[in-house]
């Protein structure tokens, strides 16, 4: 069975609501995290992202200056000097399926709809730690593989061109790690 050593993880929290930041900080510290940096808008978060180089970003969607979606897009710049590969967990009050799709297309790694729960947050963190997806770069997208279904027989719309190697096998660590929750 696997467990996360939160003590070694560095988080960046981005939410304009101070109460939600307090809740997130409380949850992360209870999990065992010691390093959790906070920002209340997307612009500050981007600066902090470059400065602190967090392992995982947890961001709200609706925020002043620029929002969580724009933050994700700015982090996911393949030519940037910073790390464009860090996992981004979007924690948001938006609960419509189309929002999940938009967030996914901006390069968000995991989507967590509020109301927040300790279990929901832990599972998203576990997923990005234990089961990182390969990144895909196309003309219009750079971010984690948006396809979680590794069915090679898929023949539906928007199938990528490229033969058998186009779908990467996922590591099986996640299933093992899930048993620890």
């Amino acid at each position, binding site marked *: *069975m*696997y*467990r*996360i*050593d*939160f003590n*070694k*993880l*560095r988080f960046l929290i981005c939410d*304009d*609501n101070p*109460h*939600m930041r*307090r*809740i997130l900080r*409380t*949850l992360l*510290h*209870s999990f*065992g995290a010691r390093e959790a940096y906070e920002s209340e808008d997307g612009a500050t978060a981007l600066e902090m992202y470059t400065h*602190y*180089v*967090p*392992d*995982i970003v947890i961001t709200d969607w*609706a925020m002043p200056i620029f929002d969580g979606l724009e933050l994700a897009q700015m982090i996911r710049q393949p030519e940037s000097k910073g790390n464009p*590969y860090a996992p981004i967990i979007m924690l*948001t*009050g938006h*609960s419509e*399926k*189309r929002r*999940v799709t938009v967030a996914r297309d901006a390069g968000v790694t995991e989507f967590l*709809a*509020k*109301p*927040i729960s*300790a279990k929901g947050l*832990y599972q998203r963190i576990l997923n*990005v*730690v234990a089961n*990182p997806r*390969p*990144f*895909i*770069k*196309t*003309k219009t997208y750079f971010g984690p*593989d948006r396809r979680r279904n590794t069915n090679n027989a898929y023949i539906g719309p928007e199938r*990528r*061109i*490229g033969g058998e*190697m*186009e779908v*990467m096998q996922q*590591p099986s*660590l996640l299933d093992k*790690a899930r048993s*620890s*929750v």
Partner: protein
Amino acid sequence: MAKEKPGKLEVKSFADHHVITQPNPLRKVLLRVPESDLDDPVGRAEKALAGLSGEFKNWMAIEADRLSAAHAAILKGGFTDDSREELFRAAHDIKGDAATFGFPSAGAAAESLCRIIEHAPDLELVPSDLIRHHINAIQAIVRERTKLDTAATAGVLSRSLRGIADEFLTYANRDRPEHLEAILAPSIIPVE
């Protein structure tokens, strides 16, 4: 952890895309522990959250007052991009936070208000009572929670508001199929 150098990237190129993999940079934080390990980080976090609950009513009152202030600014100066944005953001925060703070019906009423702000073709043409009743309902739910019959009443109130708002939005967007689809789409959050 973050100071470690990232692993070497492996890029496989295909006709219309590249697949980029790197050794899992966070693998070192995964600890193998025996099945008998009793550590329960989720339980610990739930207890810590419960420890904060004494502050939730006060936090909720602050959020509700922010919403009322945003509405008051609109009544005074009309809808502008900024005032609309502030009203939406205040309602959206309540939608996301209220259930965590123990006010699920306030969250439901706030969600209904968010839908009005997001999908009404022209906010100036939304009946002013529709917005006002949402805000008054949220304030009432937050202020009156300690009364015994409030939970049931709050549920009825928020459902009624949602029904009226949906009826208005469905009619107002009858010629806007993309909004109509969004209004009628189910939430990804399971109904309790």
